[in-house]
């Protein structure tokens, strides 16, 4: 372990703001990339189900 305490880990030797801001943006962009196709997929499934119901009538 490079850091001797949790506080010094978060402080990152005074560069904590820059480091954690970067990792925050990273987390956000990962979430977007995982979630947006999942949301789209639900929507497509719904649309196809509606289309199938229409065809049955």
């Amino acid at each position, binding site marked *: *372990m*490079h850091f001797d305490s949790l506080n010094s*880990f978060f402080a990152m030797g005074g*560069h904590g703001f820059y480091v954690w*801001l970067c990792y925050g943006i990273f987390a956000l*962009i990962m979430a977007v990339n995982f979630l947006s*196709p999942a949301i789209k997929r639900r929507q497509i499934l719904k649309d*196809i189900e509606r289309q199938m119901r229409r065809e049955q009538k």
Partner: protein
Amino acid sequence: MWQALKRLYHRLGSPKWFFEISAKWSPWFLWIGAALMAAGLVWGLAYAPADYLQGNSFRIIYIHVPSALLSQSAYVMMAVGGLIGLVWKMKLAFVVSKVIAPIGATMAVLALLTGAIWGKPTWGTWWVWDARLTSMLILLFLYFGVIALHNAIENEDLANKAAAILSIVGTINIPIIKYSVEWWNTLHQPATITLTKKPTMAPEMFIPLVFTILAFYCWFAVWLFARTRNEILWRERRTQWVKKWVRDNAL
């Protein structure tokens, strides 16, 4: 041999085959990527020694370099997909090209933002209009251009072709990004990783970087598969196999 290649080509062109095989591969890429990412980030953030010049701000490297690399690889893949689509009229290649654009754009944004934030404590400025930073910004705009073409052109065939041509022409920017740190004076440091030379970083800083790079590429595969599967479902929505699949996977 030729027969086998031909068979592979036809399978690759088959949306149904891609849909089935990608469902099998996705979880592997997801979890191997997650393990690599966790290991790389814990090691890189908590255990790797601090840089003797930059201190702890260098730890941004573990997301900056992977996203920058991936944004360029993804771009080349998008252009190659476009080329295959244009030359061999392979629909699936166009689909892959189209879905790469938004993913690649997020990677370019991540590389640019982490670079700017890293630049502040290191160079004393968020941004300079030098060759490396400007060519990366152009990469992002090329992605935006491809996305805009797909959104603006109603005729799908035409949109695919226009996007393919823009992607192919834009690949000229890739070697410019790569060599920008050698050709021009820049604040940006030279390449951290080269395939031909030994790394200039200490192994305990370098190995976690290799982990996060591999993790980014694994997750890229997951995102690419998920978006391509969505496109296939929608395009093939009138076929029997999709209807059956929807029935089996009802919400």
